[in-house]
């Protein structure tokens, strides 16, 4: 019976131990903004922010997050009060079908913080330095979020604008 703080509210659930954090959100908490694209950590559609970090909610058991703070796409903004990144996704057409979009936005929201902390990436030439968030840095850091519609150029543009 895990209890989690989801988007600021403590909620407890009566669910099977096998329930992934993703299925808990979608099937038990009524928060279907978090998407399931593969259920195996291979697409990023299920990305949520747990204790400040982006993770794939499909590869985590809900019971492992007892007491954790979880932020989902629904916690980042509402249709009438979009977060800056959500607004940039709309204006840059950084989606098509929209299915990967919540995962992209949660991922990017946390990714921008990672960059602010100075984390290097696989395209950083000298890992001792803290790189600027160039387009290539954004692309590499967002490569854990597949978009089959391939809105990638617009996703990069939306993130670039928001992170600046």
């Amino acid at each position, binding site marked *: 019976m895990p209890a989690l703080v989801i988007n600021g509210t403590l909620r407890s659930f009566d669910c099977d131990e096998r329930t992934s954090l993703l299925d808990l959100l979608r*099937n038990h908490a009524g928060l279907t*903004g978090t998407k399931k694209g593969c259920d195996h950590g291979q697409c990023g559609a299920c990305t949520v922010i747990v204790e400040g970090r982006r993770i794939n909610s499909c590869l985590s058991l809900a019971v492992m997050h007892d007491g954790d703070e979880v932020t989902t796409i629904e916690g980042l903004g*509402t249709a009438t009060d979009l977060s800056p990144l959500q607004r940039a996704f709309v204006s840059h057409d950084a989606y098509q079908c*929209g299915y990967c979009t919540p995962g992209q936005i949660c991922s990017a929201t946390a990714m921008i913080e990672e960059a602010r902390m100075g984390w290097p990436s696989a395209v950083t030439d000298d890992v001792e330095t803290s790189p600027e968030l160039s387009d290539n840095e954004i692309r590499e850091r967002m490569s854990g979020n597949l978009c089959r519609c391939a809105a990638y150029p617009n996703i990069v543009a939306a993130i670039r604008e928001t992170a600046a």
Partner: protein
Amino acid sequence: MTNTLTMDKPDVRNRLDAMAQGIIGAPLDRPEGPLKVVGTATYASEWQLPDMAYGVFARATVPAGKVASIDREAVLAMPGVLAIHDDPRMLVNPAQGGAGKKPLQDIREIHYFGQTVALVVAETFEQATAAAKALKVEYAAPDDASVFDPESSAATVEHGPDTQRVQTGDLDKAMADAAFSVDVTYTTAGHASAAMEPHASIASWQGDQLTLRGSLQMLNYNVAELADSLAVGQSQVRILSPYVGGGFGSKLGVGEDSVAAAIASRELGRPVRVDMSRQQVFETVMRRSETRQRLRLAARADGVLTGIGHECLVSNLPGEQYAEPVTQATEFLYGGENRMLSVDVARIVRLCAGSVRAPGEAVGMQALESAMDELAEKVGIDPVELRKRNIPAIDPSQGTPYSSNTLAKCLDAGAARFGWDQRQTQTCATREGEWWIGMGVASAARVHKLVEASARVTLASDGTVKVETDMTDIGTGTYAVLGQIAGEMLGTPIEKVSVCLGDSALPAGPGSGGSWGAASSGSAVFLACEQIRQALAKKFQGDEEALSLKDGIARLGEASAMVVDLVAGKPIVGEGTIKPGETSKATRQASYGAFFAEVAVNAYTGETRVRRMTGAFGIGRVLNEKTATSQCYGGMTWSIGSALTEELAFDLRDGHLVNHDLAEYHVPVNLDVPALEVVFVEERDPHASPIQAKGVGELGICGGAGAIANAIYNACGVRVRDFPMTLDKIIGGLPD
């Protein structure tokens, strides 16, 4: 009375250009965007219905034979398990796009490895998943040995549809007489649509009425397919599909999930939700066939083609009619009197082959365009020039004029924007550190088709406008463009226009497939609006053509009035229906374009990176520049996948798909995609539709991989004739 137009003659009035609102073509944001970015747009399996049960499929672990027995008791005894279904109406594979009738049924007969053999329903998703996996199925072996490899001599090879055969003149002679010729064989791997939303359905019955929430592209046809599969009347079926998480052909026809959910729900008397796992989507939903393509090009000394041969082998299950129409664009793209085009089908035991984004051209064009590059080198002329010299005056296969052909314009516009004049004609001419740099070009072409479509538009008494059709938006921008057409026609600011889609109870649209969606459903909306305009013009006792509508104000000659006053409390409803007619036979209709790519090939490892890519496209009228550009980005990215990474890997011993997930089937990731540039060439195609628009969604994948192949050759001198061009096919040929 519906305003119906059969496209028997070109509509040269270009009415949309005469409108006053000024929003048609504008790069407006998608109206549904805010819902998508906050996660409240509701996709198929996200509806929360009371008392819903969960269904999960069990999978065949043999490629052929029959189900001999299923150990039901053991699984029915598992916690939460409610039922096991293997009803003979359940589907072996989805319906082909536009079928409008049931596909192959009866899953107790095994047709390919991974086919569904039963649906297990339980109280929770976790219970159903475990139970489906626990289900023990015994199989009776088939009588005959199965063939899994299309290249095997044991495979039966049949001629594809006659409509795909072209034979004129004498190609052998043309080849023998040619100043320059190319005779090469290209192969392309099978592809998966891999839409990000896995297939899912929720079925619920109210008495004899079924409501199916599904992830489907063509509701009008899907209703017929679902009703036929279930053996119920079409009036008993309603499908809701307001948001579709990508389709790319994989959701054209009703699938296993929809029929199974409906059967289970009926029997249990409660809503049933069936989610397919990613692996099941890979294993049971339409693959694009692999292809083998022999290309023969015969040319005069100046590069003008005298002959063109494109003979292909694709594959499908025995009995399936669909054959990847590889030669579709070769029919009309380039000249040459002597032509030989054909598609043969090897009958093999692998999951069903069907439509994946731009069936035909997606793989046919990349091979043709690579072969053209080989010819350009032989002739010794610039590959752009070679293409321009071979644009015929009329369709060389049908003898009909082109409705409009922008290929030359696209080649020129793309070359200018890309900086094609910077290309080195020699291979291995540019090296940056570890990387060979090169550039390549390819033409793009995709047939255009108009499909019957209807729509209803309501001008309400408060001046707002509502557009209704069962058309879907699979990411293509339908919500945006239909609203823009209505707003433009009725002089309504876009904020006052709403668009309702994805409900089969609404007027029948064309469905999202074959890139015909926007032009066809847009024409229906246009016609519905025309009817409303006529009604408004009548109030002035004037002519519709003289009526000007802008920002809610109507003007006709000297007279003017607020539209709301004209409506006077009585909403005006317009209904429009578009039908294809003579223009599609009298003219050859297609979208054209040109791709320019710059690649870097690692001199050590043979890894290829696309560094930049430009696409210039002629798509008729651009309805929304922003969403049309996005469509082209998507297509170009698929070109990158098709060129470099995407390949369905089948085990040739049992036909099972080895890389049935997104970790091993490599769709391009963000880092694979460089800055992309899209240029639209101004075009109105009056033969194509009354809104002068053509298809856009698929064009971006039709040839792009050829540009990348040609750039790889230009970079490092390695000509790869086997797509995808993974590094193992490159390292052997790299210069030391």
